[in-house]
């Protein structure tokens, strides 16, 4: 028996692990990302707990006014809004959880309750609009990149038209236009005060920013051998697009989705601050900044609190997005690190 030379033993990590498990392993090693995942989870838990806090501790709703009411703080009776119109400051647990962060202004609404409910609104808008953006962008990017020709021209130019407008200005214009009559598309009617108005606006105006990179990647992928093999086996366009190309876009889509959520939250805040996003008296973090802005000299906390929540949420989502990109697209990481002189030799087990 001839003693044949054996190949070098592959590392346990490199053999038998799927790309998702490898990505997860990389993600677990990225401590910065893990910290911000925890921060984001805490924020989500915070806003999900809004009804519990409102019902059991604050004993009020997010829009309930308390202008003339009084609260007992450590045995002392205090007015929620004083005769000069100044709201009460944070009471922490001095009144059993009522007005934990104080009142939000002359209407005497509970700031903590509004911060929690406002967070639900902001996150819901950001997530839902990011879903809409991502879904439509992927479909359009796939169609344009796969079919090329007239389909590509038509879709790409339409996206260029949206791209030509500054995002915020376009969103403000749509917000103002839909502020009175709402939106009616065939049988679908959305009233002007509905939360779906800012969702659709934000979801719509950001499509090109995801659709174009997806299209570019599809243009590249459709020339690969596995696509030719699928076509040779008789696969139709739909199967090629959604069965072959889409799975290969998964990492890109996930990364774009997280970044879209962060961007959409910023856009929602800006629109609500300008009065064309979430309609009062409903709270969102952007709308709360606008409310607090009127009292910035006497009660700066009313602006700082929602601003800090936006900062933390957007920061955590951006770091998570970066972490996911690093985990799902190691080549990009190696390229980046190589550029910085930090790359390990290619093929090193991870």
């Amino acid at each position: 028996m001839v003693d044949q030379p054996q190949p070098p033993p592959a590392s346990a990590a490199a053999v038998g692990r799927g790309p998702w498990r490898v990505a997860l392993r990389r993600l677990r090693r990225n401590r910065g990302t893990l910290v911000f995942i925890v921060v984001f989870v805490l924020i989500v838990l915070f806003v999900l707990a809004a009804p519990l806090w409102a019902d059991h501790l604050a004993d009020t709703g997010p829009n309930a006014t308390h202008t003339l009411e009084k609260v007992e703080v450590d045995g002392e009776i205090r007015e929620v809004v004083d005769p000069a119109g100044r709201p009460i400051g944070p009471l922490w647990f001095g009144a059993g959880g009522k007005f934990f962060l104080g009142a939000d202004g002359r209407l005497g609404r509970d700031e903590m309750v509004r911060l929690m409910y406002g967070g639900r609104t902001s996150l819901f808008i950001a997530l839902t609009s990011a879903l809409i953006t991502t879904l439509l962008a992927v479909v359009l990017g796939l169609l344009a990149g796969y079919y090329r020709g007239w389909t590509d021209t038509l879709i790409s130019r339409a996206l260029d038209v949206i791209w030509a407008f500054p995002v915020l200005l376009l969103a403000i214009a749509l917000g103002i236009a839909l502020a009175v009559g709402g939106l009616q598309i065939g049988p679908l009617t959305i009233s002007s005060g509905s939360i779906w108005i800012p969702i659709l606006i934000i979801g719509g105006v950001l499509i090109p920013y995801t659709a174009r990179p997806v299209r570019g990647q599809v243009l590249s992928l459709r020339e690969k051998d596995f696509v030719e093999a699928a076509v040779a086996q008789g696969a139709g366009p739909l199967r090629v697009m959604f069965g072959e190309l889409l799975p290969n876009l998964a990492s890109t889509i996930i990364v774009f989705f997280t970044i879209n959520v962060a961007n959409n939250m910023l856009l929602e805040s800006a629109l609500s601050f300008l009065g064309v996003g979430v309609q009062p008296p409903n709270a969102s973090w952007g709308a709360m900044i606008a409310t607090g802005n009127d009292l910035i000299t006497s009660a700066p906390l009313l602006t700082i609190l929602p601003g800090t929540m936006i900062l933390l949420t957007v920061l955590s989502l951006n770091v998570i997005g970066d972490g996911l990109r690093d985990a799902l697209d190691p080549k990009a990481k190696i390229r980046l690190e190589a550029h910085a002189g930090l790359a390990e030799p290619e093929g090193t087990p991870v």
Partner: protein
Amino acid sequence: MKKFGAVLAVACLAVVALSLSSCSSSGGKEGGTLNGTYASFPDSLDPALARTVEAWTAMYATYVPLLTYAHESGQTGSKVVPGLAESLPKISSGGKTYTLTLRKGLKYSDGTPVKASDFAASVERMFKLNSGGSTFYTGIVGAEKFAETKSGGIPGIKTDDKTGKIVIELTQPRGTFTSELALLYVTVLPADTPVKNMTADPPPGTGPYEIVKTEPGRSWSYDRNPQWEKNNAALMPDVPSGHVDKIDIKVVGNPSTQVNEVERGSSDWMQTTIPSDLYNKVKEKYEGSQFRVEPTISNYFFWMNTTKPPFDDVKVRQAVNYALNGAAMERIYAGSLKPIQQILPPGIPGYEKYELYPYDMGKAKQLIAEANPSDRDITVWTDDESPNNEATAYYQDVLNKLGFNAKLKEVAAEDYFTLTGNLSTPDLDTGWLDWYQDYPHPNDFFQPLLAGESILPQENSNYAQIDDPKLNAKIARLSKETLGATQEAEYAALDREYMEQAPWAPYGTRTVSTFVSSDVNLDDVVFNPTFGQDLASFQFK
């Protein structure tokens, strides 16, 4: 020596004359640029269309009607004085004919001579534009037909360009017509002024200032009217010439920023009332030197659309009045509002204090239970200016506590009256409104706001759309009569009759403020009860 003495005397006289020419009677200086701020752009800078105090303040020193209100503060400012007309009108034919004569030699700011026929053209233009102010003038013979057809002229206005004579014939006597001729709606504009909203390019005027540049939504500027000193000033002694050379007004949405700018001196005046959270601080620090509280004759209220459920039921409207707590409103306005529950505010003839609906949430809920309205979905309209939008948010909460599903609709202040005054706008259920006197007569709080004839498809001012024939007739009858003690008592009774039907939920009358930089002489600033601050009165120290 004699010669030297004469030269010395002449020199002394010259120095004195020069000194006097550069100083006003109060010792301030002439010239300079006044920088002011507004919280939002006025609803219009077209005198025929402007309906808000903000817009009237902006145009008081620019457009002069045939008659005008004295450029004075307090009660004196409610006095009607001749403007472009030589004198107050001669009233004949039992109060149905008004005769005026245009002053000779007047010119618009573009140099065009002012003609008597321009008045007829201006009134026709106002009707063609469906101005909210047109209800004041439908009593002119043929005006009602013209308002419908928009053609054929108004036979009740006869003018003679040669003599400057203007004769206005009314279908019936109208005791308030002299006051109404002093409103900006019928200011005299060149006959060829386009029949469209001219906010972006305001038409030439005859006052001491002309608007030379507007950026709708952002800013507008004035220069001295080049024709003022040459022609108009000497002809209109009741209209002051103004002190500053230029006025620049910009929109600063945040009133706190406006206060800050005035305190730093980067702005000389803020038109907006001091925001509630800074009010006491500013008052304590600057009252008397840079800050002054100004009383107004105003009513702040929520209108309820009496033609649509649920507010077509008087019990629902009364319930809303019972549920609204004036004390809460007073606090929301941080002391700059005094609660009232009636149509006529203090200060207007005919005002008699009463309180038909003292705060009683229990009674309000009982009335709602009795009415049991089937439609409980309500849209509540408000503009976006604080604290009006906060007062409306409180009102929305009150409606929800009464068992309604009330949704708030907040609209930019500059669009608010156009939208809510257009009857084709959907969901006009209830909303916020303030009303400042156009002229010191109780009719001003009834006819435009509550008379059936004031329900207009556009520029509507009867927001509650109440149309009670009996009360309409009473308004019409009283408007013909000269105001006296009997009429005042009747207006007071009319106030009660309307509030028994509760088309509104009135909640207060307001004081506003004048706040100027340390460079401006506060004592000189005139606050007219109808027009607000007079831009021609601002003078630097």
